[in-house]
């Protein structure tokens, strides 16, 4: 199957290419127009396969069937609450068109500045901590790391099937964790990876905003690895015995802190982590892994601006010095 994204279905060049494709290969062609309604239905990422189901103009398609894509105008735009007008086939207003133009204008200015800065020696990513967790899983799988089976869906029945297949789940964010500080209440709200039980499933509506769920991996301990210049600095966190930290060690228990020890990754895992970071185009970042009860190293996620002070201080890695040396081209000084 060949997908062609375009502005108009009357583009003669596109029609001609379509005819050639059909004549030569008899491939089916999906023509996606600029105003078409594209909706993400679900993504299933398991160690053995990946499926992405989308809907275009009421037609459900599996991306597995796509052989190639041609962008001849148009773009992939998912319908969600931001683009509801488009979903309702309403004409985009002057204000929305101008907003779109100004957003491109604003991005262009930013890109120029980033382009200038990118010529410098850069450490870290200008991502404000963003890194798509599902795409990270795909990359990790590509380099041979184990990953937890994952589903991204907004449908309760999909989760029921997933629970039957994989058992207990956790719910996590697709990208950034949610953060909010209530000034009046003087308290923080922060989303963590959370246990997702059958009881939670029973309380859910049939359809909800697309969310990410993973098989809960029973673990011996967690491993946080800070990556810098092809080196991995790791610590093992014994978070599994504390109910507060067992799903996400960042729910620190200040009364009874987790035991933390320096940790040396097995060479094969280290090579895979390095390969992952290179493919992810990250010069530095913090990688979360689990050592499972089955003695398997399972990749969870990467944070491109991950905090390392905790790791450096507890394990005496002097990472601050390593970074200072990196930024000042003083790599050989010890």
């Amino acid at each position: 199957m060949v997908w062609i994204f375009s502005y108009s279905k009357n583009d003669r060049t596109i029609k001609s290419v379509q005819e050639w494709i059909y004549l030569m290969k008899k491939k089916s062609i999906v023509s996606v127009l600029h105003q078409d309604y594209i909706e993400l239905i679900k993504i299933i990422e398991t160690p053995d396969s990946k499926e992405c189901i989308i809907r275009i103009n009421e037609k459900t398609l599996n991306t597995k069937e796509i052989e190639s894509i041609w962008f001849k105008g148009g773009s992939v735009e998912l319908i969600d609450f931001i683009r509801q007008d488009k979903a309702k086939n309403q004409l985009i207003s002057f204000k929305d068109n101008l907003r779109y133009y100004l957003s491109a204008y604003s991005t262009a200015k930013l890109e120029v500045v980033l382009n200038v800065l990118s010529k410098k020696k850069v450490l870290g990513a200008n991502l404000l901590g963003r890194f798509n967790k599902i795409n990270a899983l795909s990359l990790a799988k590509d380099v041979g790391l184990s990953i937890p089976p994952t589903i991204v869906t907004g449908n309760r029945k999909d989760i029921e099937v997933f629970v039957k297949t994989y058992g207990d789940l956790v719910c996590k964010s697709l990208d950034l964790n949610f953060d909010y500080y209530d000034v009046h209440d003087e308290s923080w709200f922060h989303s963590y990876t959370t246990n997702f039980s059958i009881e939670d499933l029973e309380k859910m509506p049939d359809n909800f905003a697309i969310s990410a769920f993973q098989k809960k991996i029973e673990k011996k301990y967690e491993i946080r690895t800070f990556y810098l210049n092809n080196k991995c600095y790791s610590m093992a966190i014994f978070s599994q015995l504390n109910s507060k930290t067992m799903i996400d060690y960042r729910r620190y228990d200040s009364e009874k802190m987790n035991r933390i020890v320096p940790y040396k990754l097995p060479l094969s895992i280290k090579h895979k982590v390095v390969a992952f970071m290179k493919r992810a185009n990250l010069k530095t970042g913090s990688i979360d892994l689990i050592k499972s009860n089955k003695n398997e190293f399972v990749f969870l996620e990467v944070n491109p601006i991950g905090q390392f002070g905790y790791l450096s201080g507890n394990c005496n890695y002097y990472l601050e010095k390593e970074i200072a040396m990196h930024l000042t081209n003083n790599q050989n000084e010890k």
Partner: protein
Amino acid sequence: MKSKIQEYMHIENIKDEIVPLDVFYSDQVKFPKIDRQHLERNILDSISISLFKYESNQIEVFYKPISRAMDPDKIIKL
């Protein structure tokens, strides 16, 4: 029982169905009030590496002592 997050959403007139579930599972964390004077005094004696985006007395636990050999004047404050 509605979560605090749902309360905020309803105040802002945001529909539940557009927000991913992980947001609803946010934890509420309260920290003791910051003793700024104490904190500033501490910063003079140390290089501060805050582990969190927020400040609290608790992060002092994670402050690393500065090398006394370091000249504080060389630390440029913007």
